[in-house]
């Protein structure tokens, strides 16, 4: 079984301060980490490999520094890593990202399963996984809580929905995005990390994956961010209430009802 896990390097969120104007907390991320949901995808891939044999390839599109997340994947059991890195990918939105990753997957060849985390915590779009599936024209399963009954031809996946779940039987090759319920990722060991340090991680450019220039980077991105702003301020006029328990309760419930919340 050949599994490709798509992982992304995102800002880690460490310090937090309150912005006095918006009364919101601002996180300052200096470090870079593996997108938390992708860690679960790597764990799932490694577990499948440990049970059934095969190979796990970690794939990431990012700047040169992103090779760290690939090494982290190696340190917990991925067999190899590939970094897709090229100035030409800069400014990619989810369409262009899905296209590049799909091309890389085609180049890797012989892939049965692509695993991704459900979304990246910086973009929060959850669009790349299904985007890869569409580019490859493979079936997909999103918000996967469990992958079971794996045979040579396919597998069963439990998909999470707001109102419950469903079970799908899917043929290989396929793309699955995972949620945190799927497993508990192992913690990398120092030994694993030191071994991963020695591994050669090839860097593939846009040319290496046969990417058409009009489909990557800014040119390949139909959407553009035109503005960013801090979130709206907390309500300036906060309400303070004192009194008997019944009086307090009445105020709370009334406020909730005024906002059509209860």
């Amino acid at each position, binding site marked *: 079984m050949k599994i490709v896990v798509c992982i992304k390097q995102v800002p*880690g969120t460490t310090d937090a301060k309150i912005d006095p104007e918006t009364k919101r907390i601002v996180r300052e991320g200096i*470090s*870079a*980490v593996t997108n*938390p949901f992708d*860690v679960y995808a790597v764990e799932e891939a490694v577990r499948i490999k440990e049970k059934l044999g095969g190979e796990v390839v970690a794939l990431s599109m990012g700047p040169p*520094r992103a090779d*760290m997340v690939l090494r*982290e994947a190696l340190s917990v059991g991925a067999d190899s890593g590939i970094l897709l890195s090229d100035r030409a990918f800069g400014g990619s939105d989810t369409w262009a990202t899905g296209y590049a990753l799909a091309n890389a997957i085609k180049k890797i060849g012989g892939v049965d399963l692509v695993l991704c985390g459900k979304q990246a915590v910086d973009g929060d779009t959850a669009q790349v996984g299904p985007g890869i599936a569409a580019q490859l024209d493979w079936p997909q399963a999103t918000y996967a809580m469990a992958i079971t009954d794996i045979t040579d031809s396919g597998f069963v996946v439990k998909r999470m929905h707001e109102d419950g779940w469903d079970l799908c039987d899917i043929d290989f090759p396929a793309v699955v995005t995972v949620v945190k319920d799927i497993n*508990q*990722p*192992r*913690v*990398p*060991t*120092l*030994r694993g*990390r*030191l071994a991963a*340090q020695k591994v050669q991680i090839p860097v593939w450019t846009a040319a290496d994956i046969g990417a058409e220039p009009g489909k990557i980077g800014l040119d390949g991105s139909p959407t553009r961010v035109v503005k960013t702003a801090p979130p709206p301020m907390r309500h300036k006029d906060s309400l303070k209430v004192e009194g008997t328990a019944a009086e307090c309760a009445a105020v709370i419930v009334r406020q909730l009802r005024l906002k059509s919340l209860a």
Partner: protein
Amino acid sequence: MGRHIEQKIYHVEILPPKQDTEKLDAGLELFASKFARVMEGGYCACITDNAMGNLAFQGTEMIKELGLEPRENQVMIHLNTFHTKTDLDQILSDCRELGIRDLLVISGDGSDRLPRLAPKDIDATGVEAVTSVELLRYIRREHPGWFKLGVAFNPYEPEEHEFEKMHRKLAAGATFVITQPVIGRHPVVDKLLATFPDLPVTVEAWMSKKLELLSEAVGYEIPQGTPYDPFANLAELHANYPDCGVYLALLGFKTQFDLIKGTWK
């Protein structure tokens, strides 16, 4: 641990490199060198466990992988509840293999990335979550007579709560206590000493000039820019708490390490 106090042996905290470090080799070298200096100096190396919920390497794996040599009674390992049972058992068995007997058992800081012990993992009943109390009981049950178990005491949290927890921790097998950093003197620490006169207590000394970092760690309000002399504070702690041990946090190995030779008289 009572021995550390009698023999005036400082506890020196060393943090393993974080997992997300981009300079792992340098971090490993630095750790090894700090460890060696603490061993040579006759002090006790206290190695943290994923401090502040940041994924870092484990003390025991650092010692084993780097081939470091723990000296008898000179290593203390922090151990928190954010491990799988398998990893927990591995750490305890590694400690035994390395001859390490002192453990500081704490609930610890979790994060997204860290697993956590569930009550059923360690046969804890009647609780919703595993805290240091349940972990103490587990260690005592699985490794009777081997480990000396210490716990934390936080004088900055509401008193009633901290004392109630302390009683439970002692009942579960704790035999020594390490406090959160104390500046000069703290009335709640005084009360701790008065309440448990036979309990070996070690007070933590904040050795960094940056007091603001302390306020973030314990929520202890300190006005910005207050001048702070860590060594003056250390001297005060020795004077105010002559029967207590001292735990040195954030000790600068370049400029401060050599100075602690004569400070505990």
